[in-house]
């Protein structure tokens, strides 16, 4: 499965696109929050939407996002982090 075709990526992209007020097609795995004009409050909302959509708990601290276990430096990284959390939930 290619990165852009899988359902986790599609859903993460949908959530981020909604927050960025963009068409999902404009967002690639390499898109960064900064590049999409997303501030820290938007990131917190995205994390919340991801938790609700996938029924997972995301370890994310808005004080220091770089120190969080959840990598949201790019859209692709966020999707990968969601896959990992989904796998942990099933195991």
């Amino acid at each position, binding site marked *: 499965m290619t990165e852009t075709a899988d359902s986790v990526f599609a859903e993460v992209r949908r959530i981020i696109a909604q927050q960025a007020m963009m068409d999902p097609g404009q967002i690639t795995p390499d898109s960064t929050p900064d590049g999409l004009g997303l*501030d*820290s*409050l938007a990131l*917190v909302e995205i994390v919340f939407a991801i938790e609700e959509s996938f029924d997972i708990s995301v370890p*994310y*601290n*808005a*004080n220091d996002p770089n120190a969080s276990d959840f990598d949201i430096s790019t859209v692709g990284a966020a999707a990968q982090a969601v896959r990992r959390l989904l796998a942990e939930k099933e195991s």
Partner: protein
Amino acid sequence: MRRVVVTGSGVVSSLGVGRERFLQGLREGRSGIGPIQMIPTEGLSTNFAAEARDFIGEEHFSRSDISLFDRVTQMALVAAAEAMAQSGLELSDERKLRAATVIGTSMGGQHTQDDNYRLVYGEGKTRVHPFIVPRLMANAPASQISIKYGLKGPAWSVSTACASSNHAIGQAFHLIRSGGADMAATGGAESGLTYGVLKAWEGLRVMARDACRPFSRNRSGMVQGEGAAVLILEELESAKARGAEILAEILGFGMTSDASDIVQPSLDGAARAIRAALEDARLSPEAIRHVNAHGTATQANDRTECAALRAALGPAAEALSVTSTKSMHGHCIGGAGALEAVATIMALREGIIAPTINYEEPDPECDLDIVTNCAREAKISAALSNSFAFGGLNAVLALRRWEGS
């Protein structure tokens, strides 16, 4: 110009009930933060806070009083009683007409709200106690203090999130200075350690992972607390005339709005508030040697606050001792500024600067002289107490040691 002095203070905090227990905790660098014990924490991701566990309403109030007083009002009343007692004020009927009450609280009667929402939404109850409204309204602490002591002049509540207390004290100060009142009971109270409020803070993802470590590089966020503090302010000449013991003088107050972001602090807004307090106090930056910082231990606040102090004070920032007592009493939101004013008065009166505990690693972006881990002795003649609220509302008090004139 009329001058305004502090003649009484009272405290309820996680460091204990009463001013002396609070101050002793600050001097010792004791933490009031611990595992949450007063409510079930199942389902909460943060299970520690600064609970005022020694504060038991039933020890202070009758059952009929408690049916009208949320925990936040109970705390405010107990702090007010201690402050009034210390001031020794006995107001004549005429003086009561010139007595103000200005009390800050961010969220008012949260226990009442949480308990009763649970009843109607959670348990499907169709009827609630008749006094829910007077118990939960944000002006209940101000009104109940006014009722208790017959303070019949201007009275109101102030709600500016984390800056509520400083806005309250600053407005009471300006009111007395301008002649609108001769004395005031002022300060703030917050008791929001409920499931609903903690859940809301959890959602914002700014809560600390382990401890409250202001200005320390490895800080991870804020820790919620509860508490109340009340100051008695008086016009100087009337305080002198009755032989009152003067604890400190309030010299200035500055307030600004960032007018930019609902949660991110702004260097410009904070620096303008600090400068406004200095101008109001007619103090030069060099006169200020100590700041009780807002110091929430979030990355955004601590770095912005240090930069704002540098921007506002210039080279004089090098000589500042900076502390955040939130490391010990937690972030008491609407009560924070009042508790911190009491800590600032201790620094002025006793020459003891309370420490910023849990400090482990210097942060190059917070490179001021932080009073880390142990209290420090220093003779301070003037100090600032900062509060910078969510919503971009900034309030800074300037206080001076009382030296007899």
